[in-house]
């Protein structure tokens, strides 16, 4: 199959390309940009006039709910959501049932996802068995099975000796550890930022210090052990400042933020809206501002969807009992664009946050449009408006604080390995 994508504006941050050019695909790979290779004749031409042709998006955190939580979502529904959101590579945390702590489970998940042929998945293995924070997993075996790194997901290690050893062991082999920094005792039973709104609504709070204390501790351990740390979903201004300082001092760390925390604050909880029950919690306006600036100045390397489809029943509960999380794969692009518009960030820099930068953190060969690379491509209309309704979302999870809001930026085509996996009816 040979495809020619004509008349689009190609933005490839990694190769510094931002130009109106045609792109040529053959046998699942990009074979030319600007000029067609000799003897190329397309079987199919996609007219991308007025559209942006970008590398397929790379999402650092998307829960697919398999194995074990199929009533919330299935591989098929969520991989369809990924394709509809222009996401061609994604990393999924191991907080499934059973936990991804054995090579066989990882291989099975990868195989099942591969059969759907809608996105490449890069599972993160559990750092400790059953995520219990006690015994290390077989990290070498898990890496061979296809894990891109290791994490505790939302189950921070309580015993700091285990944390130290886990980072030390991972550092032996150069594996990346993805940590959502949260001091477990300070965050215990908390469901919202420990501030004005939690105080008024009578919700148990999680202080900002729960994040900054853990970042400080992990930075210290990272310096001692030389572990490769990626901080997931930073939520506080103090966290951003600590990471900025550490990077300035030459500590090799990276960080991401979720799309929700770039736009929402504790006040979006309103009258106990369980869609705004997220982990980490939505925080103050000044935290949101610091996060937005942190992404802009590079302190925060990447933006992720933190996709967590939740079934209606689990959200129709009093706020604290409702399950945390929001669907996000299909909002990754529009909410990243919204951030770039609000903060006057050039489009290539914004796209880098969900392509090349995220790919570099995962250490995968993806997120760019180099000749010879896999033809994983997102073609989108940066001006198209659409409403986030339950029917507009492909994800089985309809839970998002942005439900019924209008957003700008719509994926029109998604290609994986040179095959069209999604085509919007908006064009």
């Amino acid at each position, binding site marked *: 199959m040979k495809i020619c994508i004509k008349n689009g504006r190609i933005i490839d941050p990694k190769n510094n390309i931002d130009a109106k050019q045609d792109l040529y695909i053959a046998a699942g790979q990009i074979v030319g940009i600007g000029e067609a290779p000799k003897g190329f004749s397309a079987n199919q031409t996609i007219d991308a006039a007025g559209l942006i042709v970008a590398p397929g998006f790379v999402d650092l955190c998307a829960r697919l709910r398999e194995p074990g939580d199929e009533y919330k979502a299935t591989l098929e529904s969520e991989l369809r959501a990924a394709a509809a959101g222009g996401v061609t590579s994604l990393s999924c945390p191991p907080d499934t049932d059973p936990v991804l702590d054995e090579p066989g489970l990882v291989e099975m998940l990868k195989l099942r996802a591969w059969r759907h042929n809608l996105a490449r998945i890069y599972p993160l293995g559990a750092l400790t068995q059953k995520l219990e924070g006690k015994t290390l997993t077989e990290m070498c075996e898990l890496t061979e099975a296809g894990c891109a790194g290791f994490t505790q997901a939302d189950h921070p290690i309580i015993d700091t000796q285990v944390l130290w050893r886990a980072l030390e062991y991972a550092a032996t082999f150069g594996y990346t550890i993805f940590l959502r920094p949260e001091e477990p005792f300070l965050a215990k039973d908390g469901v919202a930022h*420990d*501030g*004005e709104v*939690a*105080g*008024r*609504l*009578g*919700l148990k*709070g999680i*202080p900002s210090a729960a994040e900054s204390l853990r970042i400080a501790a992990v930075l210290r351990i990272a310096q001692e052990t030389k572990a490769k740390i990626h901080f997931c979903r930073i939520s506080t201004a103090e966290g951003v400042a600590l990471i900025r300082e550490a990077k300035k001092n030459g500590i090799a760390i990276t960080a991401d933020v979720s799309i929700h925390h770039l736009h929402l604050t504790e006040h979006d909880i*309103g*009258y*106990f809206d369980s869609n705004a029950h997220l982990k980490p919690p939505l925080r103050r306006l000044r935290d949101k501002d610091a996060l937005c600036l942190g992404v802009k100045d590079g302190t925060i390397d990447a933006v992720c969807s933190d996709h967590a489809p939740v079934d209606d*029943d689990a959200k*129709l*509960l*009093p*706020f*604290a*009992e409702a399950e945390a999380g929001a669907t996000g794969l299909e909002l990754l692009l529009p909410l990243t664009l919204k951030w770039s518009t609000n903060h006057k960030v050039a489009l290539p820099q914004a796209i880098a946050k969900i392509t090349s930068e995220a790919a570099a953190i995962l250490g995968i060969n993806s997120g760019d449009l180099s000749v010879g690379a896999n033809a994983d491509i997102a073609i989108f209309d940066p001006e198209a408006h659409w409403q986030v309704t339950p029917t507009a979302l492909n994800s089985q999870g309809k839970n998002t604080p942005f439900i019924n809001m209008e957003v700008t930026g719509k994926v029109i085509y998604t290609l994986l390995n040179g095959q069209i996996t999604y085509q919007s009816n908006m064009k």
Partner: protein
Amino acid sequence: MYNPQLTSDGKLKHLLSIEGLPKKVLQQILDTAESFVSVAERDVKKVPLLRGKTVCNIFFENSTRTRTTFEIAAKRLSADVINLNVNTSSQSKGEAILDTVNNLIAMHADMFVVRHNQSGAAHLIAKHVPDNISVVNAGDGRHSHPTQGLLDVFTIRKYKPDMHNLRVALVGDVLHSRVARSEIHALTTLGVPEIRVIAPKTLLPNEVEKMGVHVFHDMKAGLKDVDVVMMLRLQSERMSGAMLPSTQEFFKTYGLTPEKLALAKPDAIVMHPGPMNRGVEIDSRVADGGQAVILPQVTYGIAIRMAVMAILAGGSV
């Protein structure tokens, strides 16, 4: 902002929290309650306002006093009353809160009085019920206990009619208290110029001053020249642990004794939402003393609950 408690023309639809209610709605409830106080003093203690209506008390959390006063209030309005104690055992059987509610909707109740140990439970139920059902929050977690807040300001208004010229102090466990939150909103809305909270830092919500209160950690300074002292109940599970070392130390630092009360204005009144822990937050000499209005609070509580139900059930009294 959308207010789930009011209809589009500003009438009371549910009573979920004091926050967000306009002053005129609060005053309407207080004035209506005024007319019900005398009902209790008659031989026939009934008015027919809720005749043919079914009020369902759904208590997901144990309560004797509040449930009883709601029951008396509904019966004095001639309603049929069903009491349902959905205690934690059936919740642990796994029945979701809205399943319980759905069953009661199917039984054609007209009004739900709900207590639950989770903040926001009453809002959740109110969002879920059909249009013809009203929800009254009888306490949700740490969030709100609006009828208690209303009966407290009703009591204050009885003894200190000039609300614009008052200094009120709330003492004790504000952090876990839905009563404190309701009182603060009620007093603020009615124009009380100075509200103080007196507690150790462990028993105050973060950024509590944003609710419009002055924070005191020294009880003696905090009580100086106040007109009203509202004591809060200290739950037994908080009496020793990481929040407080012991009841003895709490009583010494924040218990209301006659000596400390003497710092307030000579005609200050003392309130407590009950049940009291004598010797923990309040000295018996104060609880039973001449400045205490704790039992009138209970009496007025019935009138307030009658007023709320009457207004919700159809307006004119």
